[in-house]
């Protein structure tokens, strides 16, 4: 890491006054005065140690008051401060009770040590783990380069859906669960304006802008994640598959939230992680479940529909049967 100045922000306003860029903006660049935010810092330090990022100033927001609270009420649902750690989320009783897929996804991410450090805000804003993106020596699309090295390269972990220009998958498996819960991301800017964005709109697909993965601008901070109170009869399941159980990036993960009326599924949300460059909801699969009783057959039908448009690359064809099996299992687990 090159040296940098350190600024301990005292308030959101203070932080947004000091900051002038985002980590994504600064990848591969050495802007004279780049000042960027740091919360838990785990992804930031990783990028910096690889030499991908060399900010001049780090504005620390980890200590900002109020951003580490987790609150639940029957009226407002869940409000998770952006600085809440994954460990705190995984252990939180209300989350475990009402949003089990979220708790599980947070608890399955990374290692116990990293979960004590990594924040939910940083988790959804982290950059892809595509090994070409993470390699300084591979100037890919996402770093402003002219190609995707993975497309015809080592792509066993890569996308099987929406894998056009860039075939990376999104790194945050927690986001898969948040997608299934229709979470909303609360963002405040330097003009003290607050906006609340559906999480699906928070992510930016490479086709829209290869250089970024979220809509976050330099003068914005995620303050909270909000999840509505689940309707009665809501059931959920989350399954993450890595190549190794101890800890691993997902090779496929699925979050299913079902609103059940007795044995009939009123509404389904099925989200897939590690399938495409941004976390994905499968409307086709959801449509197959809505209004139906959940059986093995219908679960398989939904799972198969979710993979209907899969276009595996040379080395990741295995992900198609894997997703079909995991989606089916998650639906059955939830119901």
């Amino acid at each position, binding site marked *: 890491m090159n040296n940098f100045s350190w600024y301990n922000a005292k308030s959101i306003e203070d932080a947004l006054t000091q900051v002038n860029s985002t980590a994504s903006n600064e990848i591969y660049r050495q802007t004279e005065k780049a000042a960027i935010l740091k919360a838990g810092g785990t992804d930031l330090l990783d990028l910096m140690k690889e030499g991908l990022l060399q900010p001049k100033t780090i504005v620390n927001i980890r200590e900002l008051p109020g951003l580490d609270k987790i609150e639940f009420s029957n009226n407002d649902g869940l409000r998770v401060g952006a600085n809440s750690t994954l460990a705190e989320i995984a252990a939180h009783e209300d989350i475990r009770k009402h949003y089990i897929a979220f708790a599980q996804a947070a608890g399955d991410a990374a290692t116990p040590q990293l979960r004590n450090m990594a924040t939910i805000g940083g988790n959804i804003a982290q950059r892809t783990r595509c090994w070409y993106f993470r390699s300084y020596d591979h100037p890919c699309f996402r770093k402003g380069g002219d190609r995707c090295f993975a497309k015809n390269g080592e792509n066993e972990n890569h996308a099987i859906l929406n894998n056009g220009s860039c075939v990376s998958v999104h790194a945050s498996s927690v986001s898969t669960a948040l997608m299934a819960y229709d979470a909303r991301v609360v963002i405040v800017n330097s003009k003290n304006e607050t906006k609340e964005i559906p999480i699906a709109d928070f992510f930016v697909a490479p086709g829209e802008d290869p250089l970024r993965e979220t809509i976050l601008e330099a003068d914005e901070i995620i303050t909270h994640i909000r999840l509505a109170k689940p309707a009665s009869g809501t059931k959920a399941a989350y399954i993450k598959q890595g190549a190794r159980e101890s800890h691993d990036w997902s090779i496929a993960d699925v979050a299913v939230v079902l609103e059940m009326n007795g044995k009939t599924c009123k509404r389904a949300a099925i989200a897939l992680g590690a399938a495409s460059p941004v976390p994905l909801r499968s409307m086709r699969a959801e449509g197959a479940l809505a209004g139906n009783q959940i059986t093995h057959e219908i679960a398989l039908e939904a799972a198969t529909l979710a993979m209907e448009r899969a276009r595996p690359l040379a080395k990741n064809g*295995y992900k198609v049967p894997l997703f079909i099996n995991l989606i089916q299992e998650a639906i059955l687990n939830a119901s």
Partner: protein
Amino acid sequence: MDTRKEKFPYGIPDHNLTEIEREIPADEPPAWPVNDQLQEVGKRRIRVDARAKVTGEAKYTSDIRLPGMLYAKILTAKVPHASIRNINTQEAEKLPGVHAVHILRNEDNSYPDVKYVGQPVAAVAADSLDIARQATRMIQVDYLEKPFVIDVEQAMKPEAPLVFDAPIARQADGGDVGVVHDGSKGQGNLRGPSTSSFFGGPRGDLEAGFSQADVIVEQTYRTQVQTHVPLETHGVVIDWKPEGMTVYASTQSTKDVRDELADYFDLPKSRVRVICEFMGGGFGAKHSTSPYGPVAAILSQKTGRPVWLMLERKEEHLMAGNRPNSIHYLKIGAKKDGMLTAIQQRSHGTAGVALGAGVGRVAQILYECPNFATEQYDVLTFAGPGAAWRAPGNVQGAFGVEQAIDELAEKLNLNPLAYRDKIDQSEVRKVLRQRGAKQFDWSRWKPAGSSTGTIRKGLGVAQSTWPRFVDLDSTVEVKIYRDGAVEVRSGVQDIGTGTKTIMAQIVAEEFGLKTADVIVRIGDTIFPDAPGSGGSKVTGSITPPTRNAAYKAKMELFKQIAQQWQTDATKLVASNGMILHKDDASKKVSLKEALQRMRTGQITASASRSDDYGGFAQPWGLAHGHLGSVQFAEVTVNTDTGMVKVDRIVAAHSCGRPINLTQIESQINGGVIQGVSYALYEDRVMDEATGHMMNPDVDRYQIAYSMEIPAIEPIIVEEYPALSSTDAYGIGEPANIATAAAVANAVYNAIGMRMYEIPITPARILKALNHLDQ
């Protein structure tokens, strides 16, 4: 040489234990009885350095901090093949805190050609590692890039870019012993074949053998490149002063590092002192400090300061060694009764820019077979050099051979364990199979495909063999002090195997002390020379000198006591902290008091070891007989996710006379876990288009962690070959050879589809089960 005759325990207790008379050097100690009649040897004893390890007090090379010390960092090549036109270090040199920059050059001052990504190009010494890292990024290297090839099969083609256009010799890394890798034979990148080992060359007539066969298995097995990932990376701290060079090295061989650096800088060996008190893992790759050791020495010389140079994790993956991959063709024929008629073996593998990618000796010697031939080819590629890795070649070899034996058993309609009973001549493995099968309950085994549903269970077995190597240049010094201290000293290093502790146990046994009472000072070349930790040879090489030296020191002390008691020294025994007269109960003195009565302040005895009692199979130190291993694996395969989980391994092993049961179990656990990790997870992923390793970390380079650990049940079978004053041997390598094959056989048993390639990832299982093309 004066000799005497002595009777030794011989064979396997509770099986065929008997006595044998050996003619031994007169000054070597009397035969020990079997372990249950000893006090310290063969028992469970706490590691003598355990406290230092659990408190963080243990100082590894990476922990050495000397006054004025600088931190160094190596700049490595970013391209796989290039000549270097220019290196500009101006910016780096200007960075505050930078003290020296060194550029690697050929003898004629030109820049060496780059042959792989990760090859050292230059190095920086600075006040901190952060500054050194920053400075290396500021060095500009102007590469003239050239074509390269990464894939083994592509590299073999005549039109492939050449790694070297001249014959090369095997790089000596001290770790491998076995098949001769001849880089002068062959054409282009395809070097070899190696057709012989120290067990000889081809036997019989393959064609005739196959014509006698009733069943034949013919298959190709593939293994991946595995990197060592010792937790402490390779590295040194070098303090080069006019009077000499002091080297703290994370090494498996203090002796080799001293010789290497003395040779490199043309210094007398006495002017190079190498120290390795604690060492954070090596697994075969840490015999040499090339190329970073000389770099650190030069930086120390340039700056007049001590220089700390530990590789970073990425550099460790790229330049510090790996287990080469293998494409391993086997054709094995057998008669209806199961007896093998012919084994044909051909392998290709790449150790990158180095040689040594064979498949070992398993096919040659594990089972008797009159007709045998092997051709083992090295394929040079533009990738980091391979190095010895726990049973070099043989792990790859066993993965194929022990699956092929299972395939033969299936064709012959035989239980795989019963089939091995039939064709395996080894007495010790017979006992290992019996005891292992009982512990494992092998009677549960059913033919492949018996398990159905999503969660399928499978059982498998595989076995292996490892020679007993001895390094005769192994010397130990035992010092006893008037103040009561008993100390053992040697240059040998303890790489985590527990060498310090077994030396203490042996000295304690000889003096009638407790293991914890013995002071062990090793890992320093100011002490007598001792073996490198490779080939599982340390225990067999260092324990006899340890005992011999302790015995000599003890006899010197006994002589003095005997004089006082007016008796003969041979009448005295040391037991329980006392020196006693065998025949006269009234004559006794505590060891402590006896030491106080010594005529001199210290008695020092130094000893090496003789040739094996009864001689060697090869005069350079190859003992008769082998170390046996039989491993049983129980796995679960989830057909939905493709996940394989190894639930349980029963690992039955022999290592001569066991010295410390707990430490042996620890090493067996380690060998098994590394084998499981190799079978299921680890894989160096190379990007063929750019020549880069894509997972030079411990994140995407996947190793077994806690959740991947099976229940491991080690079985240690005592075996007394009556070959030395301790009869003890190592266990490092044997513990690692059979595991991947046992797991693969169990996976086949679970799903009825054989995995011919490791690692057996969810991707490979799902591909097989879903009949996917790719």
